[in-house]
């Protein structure tokens, strides 16, 4: 039997640059940053005072007031993204038992946990909310998305930090390919712009301190990059078995053509300096897709804007693609969205699929000075028209987990 193929028929971005495919893609191709001064808490005394927040997010279109109150902000974003994507896919009729949900997060409902911890400390154990556990658990989003649609197929949450969203897409692709489901909602969500997380990431020296120029702070591959920008939001993709998508006349953004995953097995947060784990993921992905390195037309990089990631990712790309790396446009949409952690892989997968569908490569903004260890074509500052047949999206997590997804123009 021929291998089942999988296509993307719906996209639901909920990001600091825009909500919904139109606004999201318009911002990415215009090179607009979603980073600004943190508004959700008082940043006095913090070394990092900027983030990619979603301001004035309204839960009303996506859930009842009671659901909104009983769920963490991460679930709010996830439900919005899933419903946007489903709508974008034309609300197909599906067999609920054959429809799965893979919805990841890096951190989960930490905000809810912290709120209840305060209640616990101030008022005692008997005042802790019975909703604390279902609000904080990382798999809450996958559960709520399934409930919202009544989908009873395979359901899970993969928590691999900054690679979680990519693993969700990859595992959803495998579920369909292996015949365990016909349709999947694959996504990632994150809502962890909190005093404690900003403090923790700042202590790791992982975050940019360019507080006075928030929109210029995320500058992947630029010589003067000084860390990533913590962002929030979610992204969801509707993955469908290709024959059924074609049969129902669905609009197909791109094919999910391959998936490669690996571990650095090196350090809990620092990337392996030669990018060995990344190389392994990229090579495995290309092999799965049945493509050669020379066929790659665009890479949506992990590109966090940290010194370490961008250098080792560049090294990995040069090793994995060989000479072709120098001819391949590489951009980091995190330059605009900031780093959405567990949502990043899903959102960036959406960007890669849209690059194929629209024939436009979104830029790496804030690229000003070449770094001697980052010497590829990063599509600096302006979107570029390009005929993209094959695009890769890289995601590398704290923990050393790596995932690369290949997206290909759909050709029956």
């Amino acid at each position: 039997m021929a291998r089942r193929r999988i296509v993307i028929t719906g996209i639901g971005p909920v990001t600091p640059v825009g909500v919904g495919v139109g606004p999201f893609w318009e911002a990415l191709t215009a090179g607009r940053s979603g980073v600004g001064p943190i508004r959700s808490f008082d940043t006095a005394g913090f070394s990092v005072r900027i983030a990619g927040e979603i301001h004035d997010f309204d839960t009303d279109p996506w859930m009842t007031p009671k659901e909104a109150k009983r769920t963490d902000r991460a679930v709010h974003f996830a439900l919005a993204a899933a419903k946007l994507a489903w709508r974008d896919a034309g609300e197909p009729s599906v067999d609920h038992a054959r429809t799965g949900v893979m919805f990841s997060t890096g951190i989960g409902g930490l905000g809810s946990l912290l709120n209840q911890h305060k209640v616990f400390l101030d008022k005692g154990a008997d005042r802790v909310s019975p909703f604390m556990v279902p609000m904080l658990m990382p798999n809450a989003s996958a559960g709520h998305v399934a409930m919202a649609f009544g989908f009873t197929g395979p359901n899970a949450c993969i928590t691999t930090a900054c690679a979680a969203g990519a693993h969700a897409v990859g595992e959803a692709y495998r579920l369909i390919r292996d015949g365990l489901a016909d349709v999947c909602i694959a996504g990632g969500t994150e809502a962890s712009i909190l005093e404690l997380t900003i403090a923790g990431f700042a202590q790791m020296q992982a975050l940019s301190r360019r507080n006075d120029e928030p929109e210029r702070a995320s500058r992947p591959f630029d010589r003067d990059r000084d860390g990533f920008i913590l962002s929030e939001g979610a992204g969801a993709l509707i993955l469908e078995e290709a024959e059924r998508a074609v049969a129902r006349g669905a609009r197909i953004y791109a094919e999910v053509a391959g998936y490669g995953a690996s571990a650095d097995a090196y350090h809990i947060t620092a990337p392996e300096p030669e990018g060995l784990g990344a190389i392994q993921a990229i090579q495995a992905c290309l092999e799965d897709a049945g493509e050669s390195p020379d066929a790659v037309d665009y890479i949506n990089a992990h590109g966090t804007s940290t010194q370490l990631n961008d250098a080792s990712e560049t090294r990995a790309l040069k090793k994995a693609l060989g000479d072709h790396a120098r001819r391949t446009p590489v951009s980091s949409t995190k330059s605009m969205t900031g780093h959405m952690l567990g949502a990043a892989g899903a959102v960036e997968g959406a960007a890669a699929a849209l690059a194929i569908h629209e024939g436009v490569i979104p830029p790496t903004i804030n690229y000003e000075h070449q770094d001697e260890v980052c010497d590829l074509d990063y599509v600096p500052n302006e979107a570029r028209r390009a005929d993209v047949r094959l695009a890769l999206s890289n995601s590398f997590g704290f923990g050393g987990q790596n995932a690369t997804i290949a997206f290909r123009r759909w050709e029956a």
Partner: protein
Amino acid sequence: MDMAELQDKVCAILADNLSVPEDKVNPESRFQEDLDADSLDLVEAVLALEEEFGVTIPEEEMEGVKTVGQAIQLVATKLGVAA
């Protein structure tokens, strides 16, 4: 505080806590059937009542509480408010 006042207050707190319109909450309302409140919702609602009235309602006293009226009575007993 008299009983009528207490009743209004409890109903208002429950309406807010359970996200239902205030006019849907009266002493006859059944938590599960009328107010769509599951067991976790009920625990959360009781926490709100404890907080508001400065009382403690142990779990065992909540057993068998099915209606808003029963909850009002429970709080009234704690506060020494007579019917």
